[in-house]
């Protein structure tokens, strides 16, 4: 088990964006985090990444509580925010290289990774000159570069062209095969269902469904829109919206 969330709460004023969320994230698993807008998906990912402070509950990585663990432990978490946080005045290579070094990794990892994500040609371009899709890919590269064990992607597959989406899927699957736990929120169900090992559905800050393993295989066997059907069924059947 890579990470556990135990009763995670994030409060914005009077509103509870995440309300007592408890999940365990396993190594080698790609988890799809679904939910309507405002369900608390992005807040959950940002809280795990340490970008926002939880109001309650516990987040542990490899058994260590992130609230008390050394800051260096956060080097094992990669986070692609929405929109991705990029140093606008760095080149693509500089940005990803800086993140790699911050995680204690060699910058020699950077160019091969950019190559795999189809970013080698723009490695020397400043981030501020990039298109939306390119920024998404640079955010993805920064999230997975180095010794990360937990990769958190907030809508990172949005805006990718078919070639970029395929290379992103391949890179993420490889990262999972090497033992990383990957959690990604998205509304692109068709893209995501081709690669996910687990589906979590959130609404109003709570977990409303958790499908994995044989149950997920059975679901996916039903057809190309199986996850979308599951999502819509949950919304209607449970009266979430």
């Amino acid at each position: 088990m890579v990470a556990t969330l135990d009763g995670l709460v994030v409060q914005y004023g009077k509103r509870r964006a995440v309300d007592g969320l408890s999940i365990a994230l396993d190594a080698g698993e790609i988890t799809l985090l679904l939910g309507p807008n405002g369900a608390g998906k992005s807040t959950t990912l940002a809280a795990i990444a340490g970008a926002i402070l939880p109001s309650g509950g516990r987040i542990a990585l490899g058994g260590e509580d992130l609230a008390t663990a050394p800051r260096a432990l956060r080097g094992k978490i990669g986070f692609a925010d929405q929109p991705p946080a990029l140093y606008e005045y760095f080149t693509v290579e500089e940005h990803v290289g800086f993140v790699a070094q911050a995680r204690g990794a060699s910058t020699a990892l950077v160019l091969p990774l950019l190559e795999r994500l189809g970013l080698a040609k723009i490695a020397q371009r400043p981030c501020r000159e990039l298109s939306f899709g390119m920024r998404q890919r640079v955010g993805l590269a920064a999230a997975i570069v180095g010794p990360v064990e937990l990769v958190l992607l907030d809508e990172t597959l949005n805006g990718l062209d078919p070639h970029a989406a395929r290379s992103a899927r391949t890179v993420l699957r490889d990262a999972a095969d090497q033992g990383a736990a990957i959690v990604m929120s998205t509304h692109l169900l068709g893209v995501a269902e081709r690669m996910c090992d687990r589906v979590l559905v959130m609404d109003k800050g709570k977990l409303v469904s958790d499908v994995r393993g044989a149950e997920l295989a059975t679901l996916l066997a039903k057809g190309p829109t199986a996850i979308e059907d599951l999502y819509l069924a949950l919304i209607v059947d449970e009266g979430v919206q």
Partner: protein
Amino acid sequence: MTSREFIRWARKSEPGGFPWWIAIAAAFAGFVAWRGTTGAWLAGAIVAYAFAFLRVPFLMYWRADASLLAQLPIEGAALFDAALYRCVVAAAITTAVVCAGAAPLADVRPLIFAGALGLAAAFMLPAAVVWSAVLVANDQLAAVAGAQTSAQGASATLGAIPGFAATAILAPALIASPWLTGGTAKLPAPVVLGAIAAISVLAIASARAGAAKVMAVILRDVSALDRQRLATLEIRPPTAIERAIGGLLGDAALPYAKTARLMRRRYPMAFALGALAFLVLAIIGLAQAPVEWLIATLVGVALYAGVLAGRLGVPPIELPRLALPFPRSTLRRARRAWLVGWWAIFVLAPGLFAALRTEPTLGGALLGAGTLLVLII
């Protein structure tokens, strides 16, 4: 949308902050009362107006909303009037501070002097920066038509013309300044101040007629050029000084290297103004100018260091949402190292020279206080 309507929207989009200028005015008046000389007031006034003049391009077109405004169907006259409104408000605040500083002198001449420079800040500098932007916009249009042009050349125009205009205003004003104490000046003050006021009014009247037609083009081209210029500028490895400072920082070396590179690219003005401060302090030392000039310059530079400290902690220099594994204390140390480096090179070294050549005790104490402030923030 009329000018009045647009100005109302523009004012809404800029929430008012704490009126720091009242505190600055009180501090300035206290300084003048302490020193009891017109020279002290003049030094503070020149520093204040130098800042006001340098700020004008940022009030006119180097703004975050420039590219958005350029796309909207707002008349050029309204765009220009809103920009001019910001300049007039800023100039009025600067003039109020400078006039408040003159209160202990109980003399009308400083007020006349401040009024002329205030008109220049409100009207002549905006006219000059718009003129430089028109040249740049025309240059860009020529480039589209196939003529030779360059981003560097256009950027130099944008920086050089306002700088030249500021010098052309402050230099004769300084030459005429003995009039403030009843002395004989090489240039007659009434003529100099009257000319500054008259040229300011004429300049803005003629600039408004032309700028209204091209203001949207100016906003679009200058903001596009700014992006292009800053993006391609100085993609260079760390300097020897940055490497030396980084070598002393241990685990803060990496965030320091990042901060140093980004500051060089995003805020080149910090280095230009630092060099200007270096030059002014060196001249004060060489000329053994009255210590009031040293005090006013150090206060101005210390305020600017405070602005830089604020920029070091926010995007695009620091990205909290990137969630990197640096302790906050490490990031703070990296930011402090950059600011202390900037201060040591551009202020402390020439400041020590100036202090030793003017009043070592007072100058040294001020430099010490400034350095302490930089270490704290």
